[in-house]
């Protein structure tokens, strides 16, 4: 009977907290959206599954060795940990209260030395870092995974349309207004007392408006790691929703006549221009914004491998095998941040709401900028391509093309929209660099 009871106490059902149950359902919902609705399945499948893994009771896959020891170790070990951390445990309270007290100290307020000593004790007793925790440390906390993905994106990007019409860079710049407006929105919500975001957190939330998964993850891993789960989920979910979010805004801000504008055909771009361009960006970054160097440096490196034509094999690996491997690890690591304590909060709802506002504002700013440019210049510009300035490559460009075709069945805007689209990637990386410079 005693043995049976031990087995029962060790089972998942006995230990499942309501929060974990809800998070497992959230993970299932993400899987459903990815599999049945085809929402960015490449990322949401690993993220959703990682979310479920992270919330398995007692397994502690997303916990460090120390957290795991605090969570499940025997009272004797807890006392050892308490001495290491410099906490006095109330001898009358039960083990649960001790765990709470230790958790509180371990997460804020403990000196690095004490933490290291406590960790050594936990490892000595036989606890190890959870699998997802290790993935997170290696892939995201170090910043490596989003950067390698960015390199792959660079290797997949064709700058041809942008080089043929460099003015479309302005559209990519305008659409970044979504990022900064949302930042201000998040700060405003805190000032009104609705939510409680610090400036760093507000900046990380704003980056969702850049519609660029790796950039969002990179920035939030630097500025607000505690919000990373919610931010990554919001960024990827809304990227999948671009075809639903953008068209109403685009139609609202343009007239039928503007949507029918046909654009002059793009000039052919020589191989040499394409090779020199990533180097030119890199030099500009080096001179003016070294903080954007990790993101744009990897991006340019990937693109140079693609265009230079002498390292086919490397470019192929960066575009396919490598980006796939890293996507799996990145997805699982993001999933590890979908733990009940941090995800089930009012802030998450705030992040989801602000994220969609960011998309909307970015889209409008891009379209309005395109209208302005159309009025100012002699060469006609269809305002619909402005919305592609929020990155979301190539989805946003396809949306521009589709809305353009609805207005004029002979008007193919896809190539024209690719210019602002890749400009948006550069723009959001620059915005990310500015934020990290200012707040990091």
């Amino acid at each position, binding site marked *: 009977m005693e043995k049976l009871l031990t087995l029962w106490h060790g089972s998942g059902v006995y230990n499942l907290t309501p929060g974990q149950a809800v998070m497992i359902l959230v993970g299932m919902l993400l899987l459903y959206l990815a599999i049945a609705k085809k929402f960015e399945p490449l990322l949401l499948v690993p993220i959703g599954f990682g979310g479920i893994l992270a919330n398995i009771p007692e397994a502690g896959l997303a916990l460090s060795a120390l957290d795991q020891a605090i969570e499940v170790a025997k009272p004797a070990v807890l006392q050892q940990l308490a001495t290491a951390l410099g906490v006095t445990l109330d001898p009358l309270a039960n083990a649960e209260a001790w765990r709470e007290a230790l958790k509180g100290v371990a997460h804020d307020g403990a000196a690095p030395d004490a933490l290291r000593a406590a960790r050594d004790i936990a490892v000595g007793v036989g606890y190890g870092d959870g699998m997802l925790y290790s993935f997170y440390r290696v892939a995201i906390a170090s910043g490596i995974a989003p950067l390698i993905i960015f390199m792959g994106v660079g290797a997949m990007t064709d700058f041809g349309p942008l*080089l043929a019409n*460099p003015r479309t*860079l*302005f559209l*990519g710049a305008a659409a970044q207004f979504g990022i*900064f407006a949302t930042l201000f929105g998040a700060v*405003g919500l805190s000032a009104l007392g609705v939510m409680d975001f610090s400036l760093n957190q*507000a900046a990380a939330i704003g980056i969702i408006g850049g519609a660029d998964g790796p950039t969002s993850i990179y920035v939030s891993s630097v500025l607000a790691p505690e919000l990373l789960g919610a931010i990554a989920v919001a960024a990827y979910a809304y990227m999948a929703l671009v075809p639903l979010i953008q068209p109403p805004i685009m139609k609202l801000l343009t007239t039928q006549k503007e949507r029918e504008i046909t654009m002059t055909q793009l000039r052919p771009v020589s191989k*040499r221009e394409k090779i020199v361009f990533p180097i030119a960006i890199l030099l500009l970054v080096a001179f003016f914004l070294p903080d954007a160097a990790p993101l744009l440096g990897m991006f340019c490196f990937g693109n140079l491998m693609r265009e230079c034509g002498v390292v086919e094999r490397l470019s192929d690996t960066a575009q396919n095998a490598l980006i796939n491997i890293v996507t799996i690890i990145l997805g699982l690591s993001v999933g590890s941040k979908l733990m009940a304590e941090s995800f089930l909060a009012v802030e998450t709802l705030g992040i989801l709401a602000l994220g969609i506002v960011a998309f909307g504002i970015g889209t409008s700013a891009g379209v309005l900028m395109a209208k302005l440019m159309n009025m100012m210049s002699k060469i006609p510009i269809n305002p619909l391509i402005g919305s592609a300035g929020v990155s979301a490559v190539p989805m946003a460009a396809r949306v521009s093309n589709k809305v353009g075709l609805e207005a004029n069945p002979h008007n193919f805007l896809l190539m024209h929209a690719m210019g602002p689209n890749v400009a948006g990637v550069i723009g959001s990386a620059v915005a990310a660099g*500015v934020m990290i410079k200012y707040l990091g």
Partner: protein
Amino acid sequence: MQDMQLLEEGLSLMALGMGFVFVFLTLLVIVTTLMSKVIGRFFPEPVAPAVPVRGRGAAPRGQDDDVMVAITAAVHRYRRRHHR
């Protein structure tokens, strides 16, 4: 007062960030345009003009004449039918 300070910080980050993004991308537009001009003028692609010349030169003369005869005949017949 804490709130006002936060708002101010947010506003200044917004202005600074947006301004910098524009300045940077404007610079990029200028650099790109210059680069395209320089490359177009001083380092044009050598391959592009070579290909069509070789293609035309390689076609055998005799076959060319046959084709010309056939085309002329076809055009002639077409015109006659439509001028009626």
